[in-house]
């Protein structure tokens, strides 16, 4: 009980401070406009949409309430306690802040001199255009009601899920008589799951039809990051090798495609399809070439060396020395795109091409993960020496992880270059490596859906947030920090990793992961 309240207070103060910052930076007015427009509320003040603001506050407190109740959702009472404590604190923080600025404003203090975003109008907006007391009370009420609601909803949802899990377990016991233990450990997905995948696939394939030119392009970029994320996921998430120079393989893929299809600097102009294959092979080959000397190193040393490799590639493609062969700082222009049955690819077709590539790679990764190779990677990630003692050739499997990851990046690079019809050194900076690694961390290391969610959050969200313009990076950074506090294992983690980060809370794998040992 005490712990629950403590947790609620801690989370509440984090949320409270963050919301006050949002107000101070004037972000609340922008966000409220977006939300207000979304539900067609008419704007009543010039500085923001009061109705939108209420929705914003309600959403934030729903979120806070549900995360506060995450520590104990075993019964509705503890969910209620967490909900009340967290929403009370947020409410107090924000209401006190609004009371303060409202009071200062009514006393005719010019806050603008110190805080650029606060003037008479914006204070009126924060009070929803009502009196000081009414405005503060409304804010406090919203936080209280929706915080508790959030906690209870989360409890209700979990209780419903728990019921489903028990049903699943019964099913598993029934199936158990049929097949051997081993088969079950690496069991196929049940049919219902496949139907779910089918529907998801349908949505994925239809969506591009409804997207405009800009969104098709943006989603294509997200898709290319998904490709790279899936590759790095193998290297870092599955094999446990920290690679900070992953962009090198992306660059090799892009440049191979560029050099072989563009008219200059090399007059080769081979068609796109054979070059696509060749780009993948080249990147994989580079992965092996880098891997042989480097993979004897472990941990931090490996990270530094790969970081260096990434920079070397970038410096090389940018250098004047190699400019006659690879284009130098100007990069390569007029890269040929693919065409099928004589029709050249345009915006939408590229998105489909990328989606197909992603699907193929997901299937391939899934297969690898559940094969002997995947188990070797898992053992290696846990303990290299013992893995050797189990008969696993660690150097071989490390090289394999490196080459596979590099091949995926090469594919991403080739598609990227072909779509933009241009590639240059500026496309292959360290930031790309960092972005891909971050998307893994945000999405959830070692998890395929995690990679996709991570790519959307990391590359897609900034596009959506474009409306926020100036604040884009600020919001983005804040979100990242916030997520690391609330959910360090990522948005959609692999079950094993979730378990590692919540030690003590769970010492048995969830039933869908480990299906053995339930002898009847």
């Amino acid at each position, binding site marked *: 009980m005490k712990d629950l309240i403590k947790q609620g207070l801690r989370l509440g103060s984090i949320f409270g401070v963050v919301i006050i910052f949002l107000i101070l930076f004037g972000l609340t007015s922008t966000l409220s406009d977006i939300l207000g427009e979304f539900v067609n509320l008419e704007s009543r003040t010039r500085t923001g949409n009061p109705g939108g603001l209420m929705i914003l506050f309600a959403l934030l407190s729903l979120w806070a309430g549900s995360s506060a109740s995450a520590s104990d959702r075993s019964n509705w009472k503890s969910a209620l306690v967490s909900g009340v404590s967290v929403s009370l604190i947020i409410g107090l923080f924000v209401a006190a802040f609004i009371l303060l600025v409202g009071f200062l404003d009514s006393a005719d203090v010019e806050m603008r001199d110190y805080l650029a975003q606060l003037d008479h109008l914006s204070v009126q907006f924060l009070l929803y255009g009502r009196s000081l007391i009414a405005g503060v009370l409304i804010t406090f009420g919203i936080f209280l009601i929706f915080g508790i609601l959030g906690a209870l909803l989360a409890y209700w949802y979990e209780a419903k899920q728990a019921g489903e899990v028990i049903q699943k377990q019964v099913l598993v016991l029934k199936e158990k008589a049929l097949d051997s233990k081993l088969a079950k450990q690496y069991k196929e997905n049940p049919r219902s799951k496949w139907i779910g995948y089918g529907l998801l696939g349908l949505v994925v394939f239809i969506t591009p039809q409804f997207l405009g030119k800009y969104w098709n392009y943006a989603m294509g970029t997200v898709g290319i990051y998904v490709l790279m994320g899936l590759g790095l996921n193998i290297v870092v998430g599955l094999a446990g090798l920290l690679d900070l120079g992953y962009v090198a393989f992306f660059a090799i893929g892009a440049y191979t495609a560029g050099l072989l299809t563009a008219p200059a600097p090399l007059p080769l102009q081979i068609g796109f399809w054979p070059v696509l294959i060749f780009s993948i092979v080249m990147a994989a080959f580079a992965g092996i070439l880098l891997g042989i000397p480097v993979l004897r190193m472990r941990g931090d040393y490996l990270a530094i060396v790969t970081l260096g490799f990434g920079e070397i590639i970038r410096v090389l493609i940018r250098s004047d020395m190699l400019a006659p062969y690879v284009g130098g700082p100007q990069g390569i222009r007029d890269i040929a795109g693919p065409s099928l049955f004589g029709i050249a690819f345009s915006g939408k077709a590229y998105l489909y091409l990328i989606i197909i590539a992603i699907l193929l790679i997901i299937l391939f990764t899934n297969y690898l993960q559940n094969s002997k190779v995947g188990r070797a990677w*898992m053992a290696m990630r846990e303990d290299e020496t013992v893995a050797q003692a189990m008969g696993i050739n660690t150097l071989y499997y490390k090289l394999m992880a490196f080459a596979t990851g590099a091949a995926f990046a090469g594919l991403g690079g080739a598609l990227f270059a072909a779509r933009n019809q241009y590639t240059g050194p500026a496309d292959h900076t360290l930031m790309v490596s960092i972005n891909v690694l971050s998307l893994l961390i945000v999405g959830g290391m070692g998890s395929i859906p995690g990679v996709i969610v991570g790519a959307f959050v990391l590359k897609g969200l900034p596009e959506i947030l474009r409306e926020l313009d100036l604040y884009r990076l600020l919001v983005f950074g804040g979100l990242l920090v916030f997520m690391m506090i609330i959910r360090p294992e990522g948005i959609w983690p692999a079950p094993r990793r979730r*378990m590692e980060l919540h030690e003590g809370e769970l010492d048995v794998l969830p039933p869908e992961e480990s299906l053995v040992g339930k002898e009847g």
Partner: protein
Amino acid sequence: MAMLEVNNIHTYYGNIHALKGVSITVEEKEIVTLIGGNGAGKTSTLRTISGLLKPRLGDIYFEGEKISDTPAHELVYKGITMVPEGRGIFARLTVFENLDMGAYSQPDRFTFDDDLDRVYQLFPRLKEREKQVSGTLSGGEQQMLATARALMANPRLLLMDEPSMGLAPILVESVFETIVEINKTGTTILLVEQNATVALSVANRGYVLQTGEIVLKDSAENLRKDEMVQKAYLGIE
């Protein structure tokens, strides 16, 4: 011909001369123990045999075949498996997954269920904990798991590094009982131990290692009676 023949091996850590000409033979079906104090070179000897360290001089033969140049991961396929020091279980994997990793080298996955049953018979406790994350097992259970995992590879020679390490006396006894049991099923065992009392109580023969050299070798019975061994390792004045 002895099953394992270690001929005068010299192993270095950089410039440190850790093993100064160690020679050991292990006959089939034997339990042989290597006793000695801290830093005597027991673990180095075992790591050299298992291919994790390369001897600078000397050779190692397993069933007549030279293995001193064989990489560690290939030895499992030849029939040598090691239970590493400090147990070395995959702490974040479940008990079952650990055992599955142990069977990594087994080409025929159909024997897996049989091997698993055999191992569970030896360690019923592990069956109870099958889906538990192995890092949460007790020390004794972790030692069981490490041993069971090694047995999943169907070794003919089992190398064990300090199985008594960090265990309560009552657990040590049960661990060594299982070692004898494993040996009875036909597995040869080379056992490295600091706890000379228990080691000599189960072994057929023993070697005493001191600062990288074998100073004494005899049957376990004779070693137990040896004055020097009694004084230095058995705590008998």
